[in-house]
């Protein structure tokens, strides 16, 4: 039954404010209406937690990961097994025929073979293979690893094989902390809009992102230190929203205030409690 459940979970201050409205035993439907009515009435009473919306912006990998040793071995084995179980292709048949013809020509050295040559193509299969090799060499693909001198933590081009998260350095109280970009919630907007505003308000960044749904993926709550705690504000709750970076960003952002980090590098940047909550929803598969 839903009604007793909601009563158990209501925080103490809400129970105190709404005891005047409680009139004893009710049936289920009326308590539900009462609950929603209470919410509307008590909207004026602000919760002690300030709401913030934050965005977990991920740049997905651009390049495939390197194979681990066992994956390499297994790939080799699979190739061999497939080759053994397959039939000869047209190209391979042609190679065999050409080889046979060459060997016969060398052995016999007769002129009869020359007549056949006029009917067949000028290129042997081996020549075709060489032509294809040369064509492939003409194309220069971009480097996979971009070199060891990774362009620093602030570039989104680093570590192309892994997904990166955007971190921002922000003043919180007296300290400068590395955080996921967050901004305070304003009345009249949903938390997702807050997260979008947090992304848009980053100075000097023109990042286009696709937000994945309306629901937050994680939260973190912290209490303000006692000297800052005013009446009615105990701390803040930050709700994280996931977004994927769409569109390639080429401009590097300011070095000291932005960072693109992998999941294992997060511990060098974030505080332990914050990190514990954030790690849960960041998937680095």
């Amino acid at each position, binding site marked *: 039954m839903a009604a007793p459940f909601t009563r158990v*979970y209501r*925080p103490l201050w809400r129970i105190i404010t709404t005891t005047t409205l409680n009139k004893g035993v009710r049936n289920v439907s009326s308590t539900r209406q009462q609950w*929603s009515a209470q*919410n509307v009435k008590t*909207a004026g009473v602000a*919760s002690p*937690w300030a*709401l913030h919306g934050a965005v977990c912006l991920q740049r*997905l*990998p*651009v*390049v*495939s*990961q390197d194979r681990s040793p*066992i*994956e390499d*071995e*297994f790939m080799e*084995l699979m190739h061999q097994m497939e080759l*053994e179980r*397959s*039939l*000869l292709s047209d190209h391979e*048949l042609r190679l065999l025929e050409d080889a046979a013809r060459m060997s016969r020509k060398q052995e016999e050295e007769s002129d009869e073979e020359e007549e056949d040559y006029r009917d067949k193509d000028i290129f042997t299969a081996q020549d075709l293979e060489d032509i294809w090799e040369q064509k492939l060499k003409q194309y*220069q*693909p*971009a*480097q*996979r690893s*971009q070199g060891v001198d990774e362009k620093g933590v602030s570039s989104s081009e680093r570590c*192309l*094989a892994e997904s990166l998260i955007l971190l921002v350095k922000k003043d919180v109280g007296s300290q400068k902390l590395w955080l996921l970009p967050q901004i305070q919630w304003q009345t009249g907007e*949903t*938390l*997702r809009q807050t997260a979008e505003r947090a992304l848009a308000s980053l100075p000097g960044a023109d990042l286009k992102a*696709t*937000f*994945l*749904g*309306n*629901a*937050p*993926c*994680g*939260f973190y*709550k912290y209490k303000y230190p006692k000297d800052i705690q005013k009446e009615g504000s105990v701390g803040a*709750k930050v*709700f*994280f929203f996931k977004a*994927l970076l*769409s569109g390639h960003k080429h401009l590097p952002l300011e070095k000291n205030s932005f960072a693109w980090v992998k999941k294992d590098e997060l511990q060098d940047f974030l505080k332990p409690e914050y990190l514990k*909550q954030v790690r*849960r*929803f960041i*998937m680095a*598969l």
Partner: protein
Amino acid sequence: MAGIVCRTASRIISSQVSCSSSVVAVRHSHWFTSMLSLKTSSPLRAEPKKKKKVDPRREIMMKERLKKKLKRLEKVAPELIPIEDFITPAKCLDETRIRDAPKHSFEESERRALLLKEWSRYKYSQHQTEMDTINEALEAQRQALDELKLESEELYKAAVSPDTDIFPFQHEGPSYTPPVTNYEAPEGKYNDITRVYTQ
């Protein structure tokens, strides 16, 4: 009615005659058209009513015959479109294409068997870590939604409502090498030889 038809016919004929030949025939009465004219008037005048009966009947009969033919054609079940993947092409049944079966040493076959077992263990552990990560993320989301519900019902409802803009969602997956900046792909022509079947 017949007279009107006659008059229009005579007008047409006389106009034709006047433009084509130099002979000008004089008509004394509208009933007698010029001798050079075509014999369109006599059948028109002779049996006007009979045509009305026979022609509609004939047309109706023609239509019925066509409809019967169409029905017969439609009753026949349409020919099934062959699924090209299920038909083994004749090339594959060619005996000249069979490779010689390689014989492996005992060590080689042992190595293969052990590698396959190692691989299954590796894949299992990979799957377990994936499942754990996913469950962790789901748990984090569930707790976030619970906290949000405690905060405010409106925001919770907005969070739980479905997002219609996300689909269709497109993303280019990872490739082996990163994309080259300002790359112009060479233009190529190709002939599409896929077989299209119609029923």
